[in-house]
């Protein structure tokens, strides 16, 4: 991925997303600005509650009904998606321009319809094909995602497929409409290691075949090391570090990134304790002053508690809030 000549495909500016939970307001995204480049593999890393899913769902109008974009913009193709209010507007983007692959293939497929029908639906809707042509396209897509005997398999139901194959089908549906950006939310967490490796390889192949820009949302740093060109680390609704894959893994700057890398069992020494991060993430109901990670950072400075650290540029491609 050549970042020197990369073109921006999506630009987020000062994004703030809030949710209303039984009268209390929770700020899930606390002012994020970042760009996504055409053709890249970006990994957004963070734990539950960091906001990584909410962040990407906002690109597709998939926020729950009790959530809203409070501030900021999401520029895509010259249009500010953050200003979209109707389903009609989102239908032009969702699936067609930006598609999503979810974590659990069992719940994202309709158990009552055949696999063929589900893929064909998308093909008909987004590509305007009908009947025989649509079926042909469906079989081609199934072959693309590595499912042998597509004609026979298309007539089967989700429960007749294994977990890994179902995930391939979900990817097939997402790719069927030739989106420009594919967001994969924990695409391999529910799968075994060997299947995981195959699915990641599939995604890489599809990416180069269709010229996709892929955003991986995950907490698995092994997956990230495998697929990412660039990494954005999220903590408590904010991005704390972004950089090229090697930069973040080998030269992490933010204490949270250090802590995350240091706590991995793969890197642990047997017989010794793993480095774990003490404490828990802050409540997003309250206004967070300063660096959200400061309370858990043994090296925090007094000022970290007062002011949110600005981005410090380590290299043209690597920056961290520290």
């Amino acid at each position, binding site marked *: 991925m050549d970042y020197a000549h990369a073109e921006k495909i999506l630009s987020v500016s000062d994004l703030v997303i809030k949710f209303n939970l039984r009268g209390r307001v929770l700020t899930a995204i606390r002012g994020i600005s970042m760009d996504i480049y055409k053709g890249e593999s970006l990994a957004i890393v963070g*734990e*539950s509650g960091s906001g990584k899913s909410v962040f990407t769902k906002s690109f597709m109008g998939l926020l729950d009904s009790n959530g809203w974009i409070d501030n900021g913009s999401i520029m895509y193709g010259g249009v500010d998606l953050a200003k979209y209010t109707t389903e009609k507007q989102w239908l032009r983007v969702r699936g067609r321009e930006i598609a999503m692959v979810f974590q659990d293939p069992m719940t994202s497929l309709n158990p009552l319809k055949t696999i063929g029908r589900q893929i064909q639906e998308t093909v008909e809707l987004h590509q305007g094909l009908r009947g025989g042509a649509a079926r042909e396209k469906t079989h081609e897509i199934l072959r693309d995602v590595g499912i042998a005997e597509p004609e026979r398999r298309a007539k089967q139901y989700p429960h007749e497929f294994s*977990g890994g194959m179902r995930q391939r089908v979900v990817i097939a549906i997402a790719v069927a409409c030739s989106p420009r950006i594919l967001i994969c939310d924990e695409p391999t967490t529910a799968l*075994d*290691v*060997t*299947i*995981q*490796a*195959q699915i990641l*390889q599939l995604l890489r192949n599809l990416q180069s075949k269709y010229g996709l820009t892929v955003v991986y949302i995950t*907490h*698995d*740093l*092994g*997956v*990230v*090391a*495998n697929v*990412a060109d660039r990494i954005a680390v999220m903590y408590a609704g904010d991005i704390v570090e972004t950089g090229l*894959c*090697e930069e973040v*893994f*080998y030269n992490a700057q933010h204490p949270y990134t250090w*802590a*995350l*890398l240091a*706590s*991995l*069992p*793969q*890197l*642990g020494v*047997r017989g010794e*304790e*793993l*480095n*774990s*991060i003490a404490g*828990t993430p802050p409540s997003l109901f309250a206004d967070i002053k300063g660096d959200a990670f400061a309370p858990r950072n043994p090296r925090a400075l007094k000022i970290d508690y007062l002011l949110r650290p600005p981005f410090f540029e380590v290299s043209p491609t690597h920056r961290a809030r520290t």
Partner: protein
Amino acid sequence: MSEPREKLLEVKNLRVEFGRGRKRFVAVDDVNFDIYKGETFGLVGESGSGKTTIGRAIIRINETSGGEVLFEGKKINGKISRELDREVIRNIQMIFQDPMASLNERAKVEYIISEGLYNLKNYGSEAERRDIVARALLDVGLLPEFASRFPHEFSGGQRQRIGIARALVMRPKLIIADEPISALDVSIRAQVLNLLSRLRREYGLTYLFIAHDLSIMHFITDRLAVIHKGRIVELAETEKLFAHPLHPYTRALLSAIPMPDPVAERRKKLLVYDPSCHHYETDPPRWTEVEPGHFVLANAEEEERYRTEIADAAPEVM
């Protein structure tokens, strides 16, 4: 370890079937392994491989269809006396995978942890019971006042600790941990793994650790068995298994472990296991010890190949 060690658990020719007649499914077949007192024994395999079934068969949740499970030399599978059954409950406890599903949502933490004590009347007075619960919570890094709360008030990592406390109050000798950390966030995993380590040292526990994540296994287990479609294909000391895997399935599994190291990951070659690489029609496989402590499922031809590989890999003795 070279001193003679005490066997806590022995599993011999274990077979577990589900269903009857036409619908009969053999989940576990001809499984053999021993667990020594004080060690952390790992059982690794993919979904559907039968590893959870083995754990559940040992603790008597699933019925065995063949073979024996011996605990401290006594047979504990099949029909056993009530007394022995209670002993099993007291001595073998389980930690489950999903902290969101394994706690009774309608019971207070106090009750959840005490349930085993109530059932076995393992305590003297009420005050003693409350004390046991408080100490169990402290042991797992939670506060005693949490006893009056309900599960939904806790995070995944905390719930898992409650599950561990529940297992601990029974003062078991063997804890079967079935994927205890896969449902937890990365940084919480480290905390729980450290906790399990500490408890092992403090209470002289023995663990059977069941998981599909090999990288975790490398870190915490002393010996490791690899299971594939209901049969154990390889068993050895963890370091040895990682350094010199013999069975093609073990090799495929090891090659697929995601490493949080971009350079290593890009260079990685993924091996795929193809069962047809074995020719078992004329020469069926046996469970063989190819070098001390290292067992493989192999037929005569494969056994010879493995022994040669080991001999070639061994350093020259000066």
